[in-house]
Every structure is written in structure tokens, then in C-alpha cells.
């Protein structure tokens, strides 16, 4: 007992005053807004390449990682592929793409784009806004908003099985109210095919950010967990890439949005290549 007391005393000397001043660790903001643009387009839409060029310029201004574009070929008749011997190689239309645009708003003309699914008081007919000249202002407005929501996409691709495992992490900085939804889509970039560009048929037109499929429900999956500050909500998805798709140009786009019908705003979006 004496020895233990001696040891305790000795130890107490060594570790005297073990309580120390708390370290201040700066907190990182992960909710920096990224804006999603869902562009409705079609290979027969002669004005759409002009709209696409507007989007390319906007991406140059804000950065591709901040302004995420998904091009949905679902414009009535404009998206039908050219037929015949010199026709389109691909049909970019998909059933899920159609359901996706139906959920955003009515088609009123091309080129049109939904800017974070915001229903502008100036353009009340649809969340798909025409003309393209109005897009820069709407995009700038969206970048002024910050919902404090971190969103991360991590992909693991197996080239042998072509299986793509997707992890989507939702990391709110503070509590976000509402019944939020998560939509996950897959796009393919740099597809060369026919396109009507301002009245001229371009055989080797490079189609950008083409929506290939919707992995979640086209209307979005319910996020049943509460989006409270500091919480981490993980969702996983698996998708087998069809052999015709070039995996190195495929990307996963995920976004969290309000369910509507009045408010469908996309709070945050994230994009990650299928292959690093």
C-alpha cells in the first residue's frame, strides 16, 4: 500500500496540471453553393448549341466544379434523332429523362434551362427559362444564396464488371427544414454526333453533359433523416454502365432539392467523374 501511495505521489508530480487550455480549431464551411443547371435540348433544336455556348461561358466564369450542367434531351420533337443513312448515331432520349423534366416544369420552347429549379418572378410560366440571355442573371442570383449544405459524391468503378458504386454524403452545416429529396443522375460528356446548329447540320458536334439515366427516382428519393447541423447522411447507389458508354467520360451528378409543388429549389449539387 505504501508503495502504491509513493507511486501515486510520484505520478501526480509527473502529470500535475494535466488540464490544458482548449485549442481553437477553425471550422470549414462545406456548404458553399454549387448551382445546378438542367438544360433541355435536342439534336434538331437549331438554337440549342447557342444555349450550350452560353452555359460553357458561364462555366468558365464560375468554374465547372461550381456550375454543374446536365443536358436533358427531352424537348418535344426537337430531341428526336435524325433518321436515315446519314442520321444520328445515338438517341439521347430516355424515359427517365422525360420523367425528370416533367417534374421540373412545362416545356415552353428551346433553348431552355432550369437554374436550380428556381421559379423566377420574371419568368413565371415554367422553371425552364427561355431565353438563354436571361440565364447569366439568374445564375448570378443563385450564387448569392447559401443553404449551408455540404454534398459529396464518391464513386468506385470496377472496369471488369462496369459496376459503379456511388456514395452520396449529405453534410448540413445547420438545420434545414422541409421534406428534402435527393436526385442522382448519370451524364456522359464529349459524345460526337449529329446536331443542328443554327440551321447547319454538324456531323461531328460534341454533345456535352448528356443525361444518360436517372439513378434515383426521377422525382427524387425522400431524405427521411433530419438535416440537422453536424449530421452526416450517407446514401449509396449501384449502377452498371452499359457497354456503349465511355466510362471515362461519365459523371454522377447528385443534388438535394425541395419536393415542390411550390418550392423545388435545388439547395446543393455535386458532380464526380465515374473514374478518377
Amino acid at each position, binding site marked *: 500500500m505504501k*508503495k502504491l501511495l509513493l507511486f501515486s505521489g510520484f505520478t501526480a508530480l509527473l*502529470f500535475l496540471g494535466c488540464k490544458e487550455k482548449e485549442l481553437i*480549431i*477553425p471550422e*470549414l464551411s*462545406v456548404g458553399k453553393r454549387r448551382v445546378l443547371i438542367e438544360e433541355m435540348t435536342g439534336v434538331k433544336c437549331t438554337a440549342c448549341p447557342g444555349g450550350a455556348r452560353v452555359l460553357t461561358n458561364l462555366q468558365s466564369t464560375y468554374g465547372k466544379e461550381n456550375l454543374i450542367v446536365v443536358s436533358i434531351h427531352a424537348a418535344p420533337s426537337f430531341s428526336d434523332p435524325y433518321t436515315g443513312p446519314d442520321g444520328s448515331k445515338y438517341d439521347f432520349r430516355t424515359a427517365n429523362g422525360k420523367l425528370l423534366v416533367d417534374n421540373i416544369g412545362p416545356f415552353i420552347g428551346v433553348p431552355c434551362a432550369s437554374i436550380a429549379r428556381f421559379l423566377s418572378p420574371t419568368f413565371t410560366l415554367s422553371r425552364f427559362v427561355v431565353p438563354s440571355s436571361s440565364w447569366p442573371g439568374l445564375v448570378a442570383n443563385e450564387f448569392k444564396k447559401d443553404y449551408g449544405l455540404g454534398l459529396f459524391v464518391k464513386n468506385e468503378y470496377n472496369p471488369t464488371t462496369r459496376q459503379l458504386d456511388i456514395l452520396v454524403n449529405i453534410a448540413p452545416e445547420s438545420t434545414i427544414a422541409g421534406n428534402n429529396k435527393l436526385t442522382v443522375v448519370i451524364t456522359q460528356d464529349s459524345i460526337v454526333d449529329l446536331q443542328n446548329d443554327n440551321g447547319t447540320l454538324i456531323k461531328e458536334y460534341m454533345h456535352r453533359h448528356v443525361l444518360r439515366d436517372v439513378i434515383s427516382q426521377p422525382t427524387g428519393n425522400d431524405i427521411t433523416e433530419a438535416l440537422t447541423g453536424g449530421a452526416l447522411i450517407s446514401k449509396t447507389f449501384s449502377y452498371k454502365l452499359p457497354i456503349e458508354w465511355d466510362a471515362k467520360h461519365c459523371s454522377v451528378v447528385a443534388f438535394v432539392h425541395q419536393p415542390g409543388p411550390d418550392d423545388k429549389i435545388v439547395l446543393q449539387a455535386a458532380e464526380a467523374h465515374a473514374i478518377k
Partner: protein
Amino acid sequence: MKRLLFLSILSLLSSLAQAQDQNSRISGGLQSNGNFFIADDKRVGPGIPQYDYQKFGAESWLNLNYSNWGFDLGLRFDLFNNSNLLNPTNSYTDQGIGRWFVRKNVGKLELEGGYIYDQIGSGIIYRAYEERALMIDNALLGVKVGYALNENWKIKGFTGRQKQQFSLYNTVIRGANLEGFIKPDSMKNFTLAPGIGVIGRTYSAETVDQIVNTISTYTPQDSTGAQYNTYAATLYNTMTAGRFIWFVEGAVKSFDVINDPNVLTAKGERGKIENRKGYSVYSSLAYSQKGLGVTLELKRTQNFSFRQTPFNIGVQGPINFLPPMAKQNTYRLTTRFAPATQEIDEQAIQIDVNYKVNKKLSLGFNFSDIQFPDGTELYREITPEFTWKQKRKWQLIGGVQFLKYNIFVYQGKDDYVNAITPFAEYLYKFSSRKSIRIEAQYLNTKEEFGSWVNAVVEVGMAPHWLIAVSDMYKLKHKDTEGLSPEKVKYDELHFPTVQLTYTNKANRIGLAWVKQVEGINCAGGICRYEPAFSGVRLQVSSSF
């Protein structure tokens, strides 16, 4: 300054040696390795400087100890020239005083200063030691004071900083330890050897800045606290009761910023630093009687990485040592898949049984199983073996190793390796001086690079000569369709070794021509990847 210190100690040793009286004792030893690297595109990967242009590398340790007037003095000179020990894929060159110490007993007080090797208990909270094969040398440059309370109880305290090659880590360490021995007069064959120890570690301001800067890049979901000081305490005891020996040690650690390489971040990346409390419990129970020996070991570890900084990984900057829980195999192919001790999460069991059936036949059985607490299998080995001794003329050892190895966790590739490795060793003595030893193993697996065979023939001519020839051969995959080039890169390749060793009293010289496949090199559960080797090795060791 270093040179001045070196010269001072050398002159002190020299003058002491001249003035030595009958009570003085001087001893020492030399260990030197010389590696001549021979490029081999088939076996050795590109970008290793020793193969590309340096061609020669060496390591050497020369130590000298002197004792007189109750003093113990020691000095060690270390040299590394284009050495691949520190980083197996790079080159390290430096030399200098690797260790010095002065020790003196003043009555019941023991004083020691310099580079101190020591440990508390089995090392779970603190171990300063040297493992040259892995370039671990974390001696504490500091002061240790011990006091013998009586003939059975001893208390010690120490403080200092641990060495990092020829410099020091900035982390300050302090600790205390009380150890005793109890033998009740009333109980025959019953003893206790209890101990208690504590360690405190204080990070430097630079380390804390680095930690804070790293955490500040994390999302709020991944953010974690941090502090300068971390404390660990351990309680242990060895109980001997008749034929049983039971050792148990339990240790706890206060909040410590540690690196967890497996945890997923909010961004979906793997690995981050986290501030966590930890514990580790280890116990071994041994039973022995004539012809039978049984040992059972259990271990459970959670968040017990204890290092100089959370950015040290692998063999870098260990402060403690967690006992390994797998059989210490010796054959080349049964050691190919060795498990590194998992510091973050591990639960393990090992049973080892040896039974002597009669004078000729002995049987052995080992079972070890290591898992993550969630049940994820990391390592499972089952090895039954026998030894047949035909008087003193010949001996045959045979057995088979059944192995399941989580190569993703241990080496970051693929998934699991399932292997069955039968092995045999035959020793024949022509005379008391001349003998031949033949060993062979066949590693049968579809995973990693596939199956291997290995054979060794060793001729001993005591007391001076030992000649060994071996070859490890990669069997060709039966069907290579769909297999990656990495998987089949060693198919039909030989990895031969020819070794000649000359021993004369305490001097030993070994010369070997070696082709060695890449793999994991482990010592005491601490492992690291080592690339393939091609070249000539010269090893000289001497003690005096």
C-alpha cells in the same frame, strides 16, 4: 557539437580503458551489411536509385560498452550509406553517434542518462527499442531515475525525447513505473509480479499547428478536437501458480489525435485523423507439464495508436508496442503473408499446443484468428505439425499451414488470400560436425501472384562453414485469360539464393547472391512492404 561530444566520449572511454583495473569490463560488437545491387528488370521495379545508379549500399553499427567503478558507459556508431533500410524504395545516407549512455548505481538509486532503451509491462503504453531490420530505433534521449524500494519492489521515472535517426522528435515524453515481486511464504509454487505504469506525451507547438491546420480542412462532420497532452496508464501482472503462468495487462489512453486509415470521411475519402480515447487488453495463459505445453493468448485493442505525431504511419515514430497475435513462422513461404498489428481496432486469439507423444514423435498445433470487432476477418491461421527425431541421426518436421489473409487491410490490394502451404524439413547428421538440412514448401493459392514453391538445401560443416542454396519459384497460372499483367508478372520466374557463411568464434561473415521477391517484412507484428531484391549481400558480425 555532435563531433565534440563524440570525441569527448571516445577520449573518456580511451582513458578509462587505459586506467582499467580488475573490476573493469569492456565489450562491444559490430554488425555490418553491404548490399551490391544488380539491376533485374523482371524482378525489381523501376525508379529505385540503388539499382539505377548507386549500385552499393551499406549499414553498420559498432557499439562499445565499458563498466567500472559502478559506472556503465556505452557508445554506438551508426552508418548508413545509400541504405534502403529507412525507405525500401529510396536511399538514405548519414552517419554519426547512434547511441550513448551513462549508467550509475548509487546505493538503491539507479541513474541513467543518454539514449535509453526501456519498456513498461509488455510495451503497450511505452517501449523504446531497436529493431534494425525495420529501422526502428526509438531510444529515449533523456534521464531515467530508478529506486529499489526493497529487494522486490522498484520504482522508476524518466523523461526525454525519442530519437529519429540522428535527430530527435519534438514530442516530450515522461513516465513512471512501479514493479514488484510477491512470493507468499504460505503458498508453494505461487508468485505474483505486478506492475503499474503511466506515460505522458506532450506534442510540440509545431505538431499541434500541423494537426489544427489539417483538421481545419475537414468538414464539420469530420472535425475533431485536439490537445497537446495525452496520457496512458497500464496495470499488469504475471501470476505463476504451479504449472500455470498467467500474464494480463490492461491499458487505457486519454484523448489522442490518431490516424484512422480505414474510416470514411464525409467527402467519401478513406482515412482521417480523429481525437479518440483508447484501450488495449492483452493476456496469455500458459500451462506446461512433462511432454505438454499449451499457451492461450487473447487481445483486444481499440484506438491504441500511440505515436510521435498522428502523421507517422507504419514503422515511423512508435512510442508503444502492441504484442503480435500470430504464429512466428520461420519458413519462407509460411511467412509470406504476415499480419501487421492493427492499432485502431483488433481482437485476436491464439492457441498453441505442443505435445510430445514419445521420444521420437512430437505434435504441434497452432490456431490464430484476428478480426475487426465487427467480425471482419483479418487473419486466420491453422497449422498442425509434427517432429520425428530418429535418435540423433536425423529429424523430420512436417506440417501444413491453412491461411486466410485480408490482403486489402494489410497491403491495400485485392481482397482475401486463401492459401494452403504444406511444408517439410529434413535434417541429417553425417557426424557431429557435418550435416545436411533440406526444407521445402508449396504455397497453393489463386490470390495475389498465385502459387509458389520454395526449396532450401543447407550443408553445415561445424564449427566454421555453412553453405545454403535455395530457390523460390513462381508456378505458372494454368489459365491467364482475364488476369492482369500485375498478377502474372512473376509467372515461371526463379528467385534463387546461394549463401556462404563462415563463423570463427564470435565472428561471422556471410556472403550471399540473392534474388528475393517483393513482400511484407515483419518483426513482432510490425510490418512494412519491401520491394524485390537482386544482388549480393555481405554481412559481417562480431562481438568482443
